[in-house]
C-alpha cells in the first residue's frame, strides 16, 4: 500500500507501525512526488540531490518496525537543507565551491532524525551559503514556489519549504540566520520553526554567522514541526554553544484554551504602510487567540527598525571569517593560480557567487582597521538593545508575541534586484535571531491566492508555550488558514 500525502508525520509513522504502509513504499512515494515536482519546463528545482538507493536504509528501519522497537519517526521520509552535513548525499551549500563534496561526518540533527527512524531522501536547494531570501542565489538555479511557480519560495531554505509545500515530505530541516526558515515557511504556506539559540546543536551545520545560525524545522502542520524539533533538540557535546536545558515535550503541548496567556502585539511590526490585507489576516488570528481566552496586549520593541542594519553588519562580519576556510586546500573546488595566494584567489573568485562575494567584502570592510568601532562594535551594542527589548516585554508578564512573518507575500522571480531591497524581506524575522528567542511561522490565510504567515515569538527556551499557541491557532483557524 502507498502513502496518503495529506496525513501528518505522526499519522504516517503510526500507519507504518500498524503495517498499513511499508517503509519502502513511503520513501518511494516521496521520491515519486519529487519526480513530479521536477518534471516539465517549469520544474520547481526544489531538490539538489536525491538518494535513490534507499534499500538498505528502508530494510533496517522496517526491521525495527517489525520488531516493535521503532523510533518516533520510524519510516518518515525527510529532506535536509544542503548546508547540513550528511554522509550519504553531498553537502554543497548551493555553491560551486563545494559542488559534489560529501561530508566525512554527519550533523547531530541528522543523526538524531535517523536514530528516530527517519529516512533521508534528499538534500534541498538553497541560496548559496544561506545568503539570500528567495533561493534565487543558488549556484544550481533558482527554486520555485509550488503554490505559484512564477514566485520565489523564499529563502534561504526555500527548497526545504517547497519540498514540504509540494507534499514530497512532511518534515524537512532548514537553517536560519535571519529568518531563513520562517520566511520561506510563510511564502510556501507551511509551518516553520526556529528554536532558542542553543536548543539544537549546530554541529554539522556549515557555519555562516555562528552567533546567529540556527537549525530549524519545516512541517506541513504544527504537529510535524513539533515532532521534528523535539527529536533534534538537546545538549550535544560536539557543539559547545548547545544548551543543557531540559528538552520539552512539544507534541503534548496544551492545545485548545489560551486562558491566562498574555499575547503581545508589538506595534513596530504593524507599521502604517503594512499591506492592509496582511494586517487583516493578522487581526483575524489575534481575534482567534482572544476568543480562545488569550489577553491581547499592545507592546513596544522600540529598537526593531535597527535590526536590519545590525543584522547586515554582524552576519557578513562573521561570514567573512567563517568562509575563509573555503580556500581550495581542504574541500571542494580548487582552481590553480600563481602560487599559493594565486590559488586562493582563483578558487574563491571562481567558486563563490556574487551575493556571497558581496557579503564577504562587506564583512571584511566592517571589521577592518578604522571601521571596526563605527560599524561592528556599534552593531554589537545595538544588538544588546534589541535583545533587551525582548527581555523587558517578556519580564512584564507577556508570554508570547504575535506578528506578521513577512511584510509581503511571495514575490515574483527577479523582482528584487537591489540587494538591500531583498534584505528587507527579513525585517520581521531577524530580530529573533539577534535576540536568540524561539519563533514559529504558521499559515494564517491567503492574499490573492498566496500564503501569509503569522509569527509567534516566545521567551528563551519556552518552545512549549509557543507550540501550545500554534496548535490552538491552527485548530481555531482550520481551513481558513489556507484560504
Amino acid at each position, binding site marked *: 500500500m502507498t502513502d496518503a500525502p495529506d496525513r501528518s508525520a505522526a499519522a504516517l509513522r503510526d500507519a507504518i507501525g500498524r503495517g498499513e504502509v511499508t517503509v519502502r513504499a513511503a520513501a518511494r512515494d516521496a521520491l515519486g512526488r519529487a519526480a513530479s515536482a521536477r518534471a516539465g519546463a517549469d520544474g520547481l528545482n526544489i531538490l539538489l540531490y536525491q538518494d535513490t538507493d534507499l534499500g538498505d536504509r528502508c530494510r533496517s528501519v522496517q526491521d525495527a518496525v517489525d520488531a516493535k522497537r521503532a523510533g518516533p519517526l520510524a519510516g518518515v521520509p525527510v529532506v535536509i537543507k544542503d548546508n547540513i552535513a550528511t554522509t550519504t548525499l553531498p553537502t554543497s551549500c548551493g555553491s560551486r565551491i563545494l559542488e559534489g563534496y560529501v*561530508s566525512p561526518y*554527519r550533523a547531530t540533527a541528522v543523526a538524531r532524525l535517523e536514530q528516530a527512524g527517519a529516512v533521508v531522501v534528499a538534500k534541498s536547494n538553497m541560496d548559496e551559503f544561506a545568503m539570500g531570501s528567495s533561493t534565487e542565489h543558488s549556484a544550481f538555479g533558482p527554486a520555485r514556489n509550488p503554490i505559484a511557480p512564477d514566485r520565489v519560495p523564499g529563502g534561504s531554505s526555500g527548497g526545504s519549504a517547497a519540498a514540504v509545500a509540494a507534499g514530497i515530505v512532511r518534515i524537512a530541516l532548514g537553517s536560519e540566520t535571519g529568518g531563513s526558515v520562517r520566511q520561506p515557511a510563510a511564502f510556501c504556506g507551511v509551518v516553520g520553526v526556529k528554536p532558542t539559540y542553543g536548543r539544537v546543536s549546530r554541529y554539522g551545520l556549515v557555519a555562516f554567522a555562528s552567533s546567529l545560525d540556527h537549525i530549524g524545522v519545516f512541517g506541513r502542520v504544527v504537529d510535524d514541526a513539533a515532532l521534528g524539533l523535539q527529536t533534534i533538540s538537546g545538549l550535544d557535546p560536539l557543539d*559547545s554553544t548547545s544548551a543543557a536545558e531540559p528538552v520539552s515535550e512539544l507534541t503534548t503541548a496544551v492545545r485548545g484554551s489560551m486562558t491566562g496567556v498574555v499575547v503581545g502585539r508589538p506595534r513596530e511590526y504593524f507599521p502604517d504602510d503594512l499591506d492592509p490585507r496582511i494586517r487583516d489576516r493578522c487581526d483575524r488570528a489575534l481575534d482567534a487567540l482572544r476568543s480562545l481566552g488569550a489577553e491581547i496586549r499592545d507592546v513596544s520593541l522600540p529598537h526593531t527598525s535597527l535590526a536590519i542594519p545590525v543584522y547586515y553588519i554582524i552576519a557578513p562580519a562573521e561570514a567573512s571569517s567563517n568562509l575563509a576556510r573555503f580556500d581550495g586546500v581542504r574541500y571542494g*573546488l580548487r582552481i590553480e593560480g600563481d*602560487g599559493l595566494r594565486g590559488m586562493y*584567489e582563483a578558487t*574563491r573568485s571562481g567558486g563563490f557567487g556574487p551575493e556571497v562575494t558581496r557579503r564577504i567584502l562587506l564583512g571584511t570592510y566592517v571589521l577592518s582597521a578604522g571601521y571596526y568601532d563605527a560599524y561592528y562594535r556599534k552593531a*554589537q551594542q545595538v544588538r544588546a538593545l534589541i535583545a533587551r527589548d525582548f527581555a523587558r516585554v517578556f519580564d512584564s508578564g507577556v508570554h508570547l508575541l504575535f506578528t506578521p512573518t513577512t511584510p509581503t507575500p511571495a514575490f515574483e522571480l527577479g523582482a528584487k534586484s537591489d540587494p538591500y531591497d531583498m534584505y528587507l524581506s527579513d525585517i520581521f524575522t531577524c530580530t529573533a535571531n539577534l*535576540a536568540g528567542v524561539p519563533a514559529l511561522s504558521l499559515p494564517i490565510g491567503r492574499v490573492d491566492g498566496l500564503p501569509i504567515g503569522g509569527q509567534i515569538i516566545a521567551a528563551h527556551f519556552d518552545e512549549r508555550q509557543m507550540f501550545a499557541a500554534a496548535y490552538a491557532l491552527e485548530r481555531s483557524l482550520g481551513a481558513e488558514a489556507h484560504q
Partner: protein
Amino acid sequence: MSVSLDDVRHVATLARLGLTDDRANALVAELNTILGHMDVLSKVDTSGIEPVAGIGAAGTPLRPDTGPAAALARGIGEFAPRTTDGFFLVPRLSTHEDPEEA
C-alpha cells in the same frame, strides 16, 4: 564614510578574492548603497552598553583541543582537492626553497 575603489581592492586582498575591474567598480556602488543604510546606527546612543558577541545560554566555551570532535566516515583523500601521504597538498610557498633546485 564612503567606500572607494581602493577600499574595495584592499578588502578584496584581505579576503583573498580576485575581482575584475568591472566587478570592483560595481562593488563600490553596491557597498556604498548598503552601508548608507547602516548610518542610522551612528545616531543611536549606546553609551554604557556592552557589545554582545553571542546570545547563547552556554556562552562560547572552547572544547578541549584533543583532536577531531568525532570519527570521520572517510579519509581526506576522498574529499580534499589534492593530498599526498595523508596530508593536504598546497602550492609551494615562494619563500620555500625547492630542494630539486638547491
